[in-house]
């Protein structure tokens, strides 16, 4: 149901790739952000968990938009994986837990 001119398999594959980037990449970024904020926000732990969790859904929505706004599918992936790796690094860094 893609358009007539652009309905090639390459186009469809790219859309699918973006969709996966949006759903999986977006989830990875937002879940990691929730975890990092839960551990590192300067407030009581249970409070930090709530703030991080509440913010993560907004980030997820923006990540989905990014996945389809990026100039091409590869860029969509890198734009999500780089922040995800950074967040994962913060999460894994030793001696950083508040």
């Amino acid at each position, binding site marked *: *149901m*893609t*358009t*007539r*001119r*652009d309905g090639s398999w*390459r*186009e469809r594959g*790219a*859309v699918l790739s*973006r969709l996966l980037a949006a*759903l999986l990449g977006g989830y990875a970024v*937002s*879940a*990691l952000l*929730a*975890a*990092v*904020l*839960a*551990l590192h926000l300067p*407030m*009581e*732990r*249970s*409070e*930090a*968990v*709530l*703030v*991080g*969790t*509440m913010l*993560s*859904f*907004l980030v*997820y*929505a*923006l990540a*989905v*938009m990014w996945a*389809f*706004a990026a*100039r*091409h*599918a590869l860029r969509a992936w890198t734009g999500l994986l780089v922040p995800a790796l950074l967040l994962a690094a913060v*999460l894994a860094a030793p001696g950083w837990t508040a």
Partner: protein
Amino acid sequence: MKQGFRQSMAWLHTWGGLLCTWLLFAVFFAGSLSFYREELTLWMQPELHQAQRGGDDGLAAALAVLQQRAPQARSWTIALPGPRDPVIEARWNHGKFDRKAVVVLDPATGRALEPRETVGGSFFRNFHFSLMLKRTGYWIVGMATLMMLVALITGVVIHKKIFKDFFTFRPGKSKPRAWLDVHNATGVMALPFLLTITYSGLLTLAYVYMPAGMIAGGIDSERFLSEISPRQEPPEARSGKPATLTALAPLLEQARRHWQGAAPGSVTIHHPGDIAAVIDVARRRGTGITARIEPVMRFDGVTGRLIAAQEQSAPGAVTYGAMYGLHVAWFAEPFLRGLLFVMGAMGCLVIASGAVVWGAKRREQHGATHAAVGYRAAESLNVAGIAGMAVATAVLLWANRLLPAELAERALAERQWFFGAWLLCLPHALLRPRVAAWREQLWLAAILLALLPFAVRFSGGLSLPQALLQGRGAVAGVELAALAFAALLAWAGYRIASVKPALPRARPARPLPEAAA
């Protein structure tokens, strides 16, 4: 061709929205009805229609029932009557949850009532967030809700003239244009509500969708909701020494004073009849905007001495409680509740009109005559998903009245009628021509709803005139709403029959975002 940000957002809005249309419509439809969950439940239990508040609100009778039925229970819970719930409920607990361990009483007379088994208004609430598929359903609804949030944000992005379009309505213009105006006007008008309800909806099940923060923070996500509520320590073990329970009424009065006049909603008595008995009095939900964090007062069950008054005041928990509260709207007084229902209905209209715009635009591009099979299928899903939902709801309400009150597995049978009717709407929509399918399903729902006030003949309970005369707003309201919706659906069916098909017109299709790369 260089593709702009707005164009790719328009693509995402269109196709992402379309993918979730029918699901989102069902979620918004059932969610809107859930604003009247308690009224629907009462209507669906004609045996409770006559119940009335008065005297001690049945407190003594409830205690007598519990003493007689479950003297050895681990705990008793009494749900007090409130403005939307005219009965008092006495539950007991022997350690694990038992749906049948409850007696419903008429507060004024203390008489035990025997309401029929029914899915009640809770059906719509549960369907709304689980599709009756448990955890799988949570995730399906969650993905659709995320898409709704994305559709709202992208909708704002692609909308250059958001204020101008607010005042634009061109019913005389070609159909996609008029439907687009409906889509835009309702979307803009209801935008604050839609954003709030969508975002808060995601948060109500945050512990399912996004447990990462809770795992990192060492909070058991399965127990998340009780973690944020002002939880009392579990009471000490039963001592085995018998003692008489203190009078409840003074404790309720003390709690009411402590909460500056806000009414208690439930009383839980741990270890009744034991010297270690403890009484928890919880404030009625919906006293403020927040939900899930109602304050609790704990008393000694024998002396009546106050042990602790717990309140949740941590800002994050209160914010979460407020988000949750905004979603479930337990706080809403009748006028605000009505407004929320209208907003929910507008949400349905935004979603439905979006689907219609899509269909009309495709017909305009390709011409009505050689519409592809895919478009035809999507249009049939529109009919079954939108008009079929109204048919299924009307059938459920009728099943509630017609199925014998003593039927075993009665609630299950009601559900089967709902889903059976809904399922039948799909082949009907596929087999009939597009306009005829819309009209027939809308009119069927209209007829069923218009006749609903007569269904009281088969079930007992208050008839519409009786309910009006006795001022039973909940019972009368459900039937008046049914009549209003019958009129609305009949009008919609009539309008759909009278519109002419749009002329086919060539227009370049919107390219995929990839086309620019």
